[in-house]
């Protein structure tokens, strides 16, 4: 059967109503940028229009925590033309064998009004261990903010903090961030990222036997996870898909 004219009109109106506005699509794109930078830090290093446009909004969405974190890590800033906003380090690289890790990843962020414009940090050779300083950068909370943007910033920010802590060898800090994330966002879209960070941090803390359970959950969730090479590099060859785990040796 075909629909009556009345119903067809109704559906036409409904179709128009579910059309997204340009603002809707821009907003989602900005959020995606944040997510992708978290998902794959190399993404943030790509000079790509998609990220440059969205990155401004995305970095802002990460809030003061990310800005403070980045500010504390600037390396010999050089004045540049005012059209170039300062870069914010949003995530350290995650890659397989540690010696091949590239430089910190940068994305463009809006300049804070009171600060002079500066070039992005291009390299960071030291491996600072500043547990207390890092922990105090974000006022962590156990309640999920009501505002969607704040919630999103917290969800992404906790994982960025955990990733940075792992890359700087602060395993316990990383586990703290991961646990808060799991408590606040149990059904997060970034469960793969969270589990990988938990495995890495647990191995770094010298307890690979405790990393087996999250590792198994990671394999169950994403058997071809891109984190597997790095996990193998940090945790050892027993953390291989299909290999006997540390408990089985």
């Amino acid at each position, binding site marked *: *059967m075909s629909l009556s004219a*009345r119903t067809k009109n109704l*559906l036409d109106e409904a179709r128009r109503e579910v059309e997204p506005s340009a603002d809707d699509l821009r907003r989602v794109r900005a959020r995606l940028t944040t997510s992708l930078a978290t998902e794959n830090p190399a993404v943030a290093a*790509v000079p790509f229009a998609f990220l440059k446009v969205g990155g401004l909004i995305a970095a802002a969405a990460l809030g003061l925590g990310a800005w403070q974190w980045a500010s504390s890590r600037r390396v010999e800033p050089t004045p540049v033309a005012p059209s170039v906003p300062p870069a914010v380090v949003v995530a350290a690289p995650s890659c397989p064998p540690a010696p091949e890790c590239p430089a910190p990843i940068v994305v463009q962020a809006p300049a804070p009004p009171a600060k002079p414009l500066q070039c992005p940090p291009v390299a960071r050779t030291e491996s600072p261990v500043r547990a207390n300083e890092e922990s105090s950068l974000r006022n962590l909370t156990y309640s999920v903010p009501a505002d969607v943007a704040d919630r999103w910033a917290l969800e992404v920010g906790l994982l960025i903090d955990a990733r940075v802590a792992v890359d700087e060898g602060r395993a316990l800090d990383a586990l703290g961030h991961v646990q808060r994330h799991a408590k606040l966002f149990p059904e997060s*879209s970034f469960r793969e990222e969270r589990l990988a960070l938990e495995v890495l941090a647990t191995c770094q803390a010298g307890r690979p036997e405790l990393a087996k359970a999250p590792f198994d959950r990671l394999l169950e969730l994403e058997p071809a996870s891109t984190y597997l090479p790095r996990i193998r590099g940090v945790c050892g060859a027993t953390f291989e898909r299909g290999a006997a785990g540390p408990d089985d040796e």
Partner: protein
Amino acid sequence: MNPEELQLATRERPSDEVALRLADFDRLYEAHAAFVWKTVRGLGVSKADADDATQEVFLTVYRKLGTFEGRSSLRTWLCGIAIGVARNHTRKVKRRTDASDALPPAEKTSTTEGAEALDLVTRCLDDLDEPLRMVFVLAELQQLTAPEIAEVLAVNVNTVYSRLRLARERFEASVTRHGGGR
């Protein structure tokens, strides 16, 4: 090169591979973001949740872009992902609603003609069983062809036609029942 090897290669040459992948992804977003948004909205995701749902669809797409084998069209592949995400969202909303059953129903907030029409369509869709609703939404709101719907839902085309016929009958009846005869 299997997906795992591809991922490993991406690790070795991050900037090139990631840039290529992002270029694909950017084009894909440009071309299909509106379609995905409309799909999740049509499947019952509220406007307030459409940001989250659309984003979730594209995150999934980004993660799985390397595994897309071209056996289905990109649009039906996206649609399949959007259906899964929309289902999760509507399930979550239902759980929230069930948990607050004691509260009075939310007041109707539709203010424009279009919003009222969508409100009525949503109520009529609620009267349909999921298989019928799915076919109806994909055909009448998303305007997918029957073969495309068959591909998305992994059913044969005849099934799509028979479900669509039944869905249209029931939808018409619902419109009448809900007083949509403007």
